[in-house]
């Protein structure tokens, strides 16, 4: 599959009378977007706000982050099975609005995590402090059940991102990147001397607030399968995940997966990037066994020499991670696993809930229990009502001077397990 991503660099977002993109500036009329959100009868109102890098703004609680894209050539449309029809995407040309994001925020449940600070020490930990953010906070109708509220906000985010993406459909890209995968036979013929390397992407799939969708299917129902990474760039995988802010993968990170980006950069040079394998992280132990068995089998059937495995979330996904690692290694395929750590505030505890000697090549996104003091900021988009009860907080979190003492796990993307961040130990 061959996909061109045309990048439209967005340098500013402003509210205006008409919605358009002109000279890199996105002009948004909230009245154009409001009906797009409110076409869902479960939502009664929405407010839009803009948060820019460096501003004294805190967005919380964050649900999803989405990059607006539009398909201009090739089959299908963005977010297939969710917004567009379920055509197979990943070929042709897609335009992406770079430097900006649509952020859905607001309380789905009282303990929902996710902080994006646009300035200060917290901003260093979240990649979304560097994007111009169009934030939407949706208000549900009375007595709406959490399941329906989550779905309504999730879908509203995709509709708004799609609407904004469509503003770019006639624009010329500032830069174009081409991503091309080979068929199995073609890859072997083209790169006979290069190692065959795959990417195993583990998707969070445990239930309400912990779900991921593939072409519109709840991924807890899938058995592991092969996907072209270019399909994911067109929105074939979307997030319905609201918890575990620091190590969940918002839709934006699936669209811009850094592992895929780096693997494409080496494709045909140091290895042959064969494909992406997607698997799930269910709560039921037999499901875990089945999925890890299938994942290892796919690696073997594809004659892979090595894989990179990325995780999403903490706790029982550690078990899926280790099962995948052990079983793939047992098939003679080398693994590198990418995870994060919950090693306690002092960093001295066991990092993962599971371990195995086969996991001898591990990349970490950092210790989610590390404590940080977040300063009081001038403006909050969303609400701080329950900040003391979210994960990584305590009754001492909101201090008298308005600062927050929290673990970095409250920050969206702080220890992302695809390595989507700016901090490193180097």
């Amino acid at each position, binding site marked *: 599959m061959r996909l061109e991503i045309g990048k439209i660099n967005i340098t500013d977002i402003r509210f205006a009378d008409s919605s358009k993109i002109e000279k890199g500036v996105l002009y948004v009329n909230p009245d154009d977007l409001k009906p797009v959100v409110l076409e869902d009868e479960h939502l009664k109102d929405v407010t839009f706000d803009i948060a820019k890098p460096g501003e004294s703004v805190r967005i919380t609680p964050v649900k999803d982050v989405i990059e607006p894209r539009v398909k201009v050539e090739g089959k299908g449309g963005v977010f297939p099975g969710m917004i567009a029809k379920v055509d197979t995407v990943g070929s042709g040309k897609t335009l992406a609005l770079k430097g900006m994001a649509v952020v859905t925020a607001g309380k789905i449940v009282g*303990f929902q995590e996710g902080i994006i600070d646009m300035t200060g020490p917290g901003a260093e930990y979240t990649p979304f402090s560097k994007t111009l953010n169009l934030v939407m906070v949706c208000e549900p109708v009375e007595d709406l059940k959490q399941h329906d509220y989550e779905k309504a906000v999730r879908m509203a985010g995709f509709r708004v991102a799609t609407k904004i993406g469509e503003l770019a459909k006639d624009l010329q890209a500032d830069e174009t990147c081409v991503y091309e995968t080979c068929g199995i036979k073609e890859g072997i013929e083209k790169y006979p001397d290069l190692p065959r390397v795959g990417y195993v992407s583990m998707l969070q799939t*445990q*239930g*309400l607030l912990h779900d991921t969708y593939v072409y519109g299917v709840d991924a807890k129902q899938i058995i592991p399968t092969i996907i072209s990474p270019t399909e994911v760039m067109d929105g074939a995988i979307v997030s319905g995940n609201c*918890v575990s802010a620091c190590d969940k993968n918002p839709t934006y990170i699936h669209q811009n997966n850094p592992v895929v980006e780096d693997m494409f950069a080496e494709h045909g040079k140091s290895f042959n990037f064969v494909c992406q394998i997607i698997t799930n992280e*269910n709560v039921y132990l037999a499901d875990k066994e089945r999925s890890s068995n299938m994942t290892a089998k796919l690696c073997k059937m594809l004659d892979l020499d090595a894989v990179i495995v990325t995780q999403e979330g903490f*706790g*029982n*996904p550690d078990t899926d991670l280790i099962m995948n690692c052990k079983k793939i290694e047992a098939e003679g395929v080398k693994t590198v696993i990418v995870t994060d750590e919950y090693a306690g505030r002092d960093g001295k505890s066991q990092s993962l809930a599971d371990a195995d000697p086969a996991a001898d090549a591990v990349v970490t996104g950092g210790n989610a229990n590390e404590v940080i003091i977040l300063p009081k900021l001038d403006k909050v988009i969303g609400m701080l009502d329950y900040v003391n009860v979210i994960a990584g907080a305590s009754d001492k979190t909101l201090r008298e001077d308005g600062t927050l003492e929290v673990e970095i796990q409250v920050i969206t993307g702080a220890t992302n397990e695809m390595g989507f961040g700016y901090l490193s130990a180097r």
Partner: protein
Amino acid sequence: MLHALVRHSHFLSEVFRVKYSILTNNPMVSDKFSSSHEVLFCDTSAKEILGKASEMIAEGDTILNHPLYGSVKPNETPYRTILLKKKGDPSFTQITKEESAELIVKALRAYEKFTDKKGQIPPEVLKDYQVVDLALASSAVESADR
């Protein structure tokens, strides 16, 4: 000492592929499943639910769902629901009694890394925790019953 209230309904248990009990401290789980499944409701902490599961495993039961299910962290949510396959059930056993016990030990260890929020959670947020725990437990029940 834990007092387990066994909420009846053995009448459907004969048709289940796997015979198991649902050990929970979540009243919503109890309300939803007590008419169709064997529910052991214990009005106790999440950590003590794991302790109770440990006792049942020592008696020969095996665990069906991961005790650290959910990315709602240990000690953050006060609720925990564990599905335990009954000793002697002839359907396939995914993990052994020893492996089940080890999973519980690892889960209890994880509890030590998170701040205990007991008593700090507002009632409306408690309801939200119950809903999410119910959704995650339902996902396991769905897998167990199919």
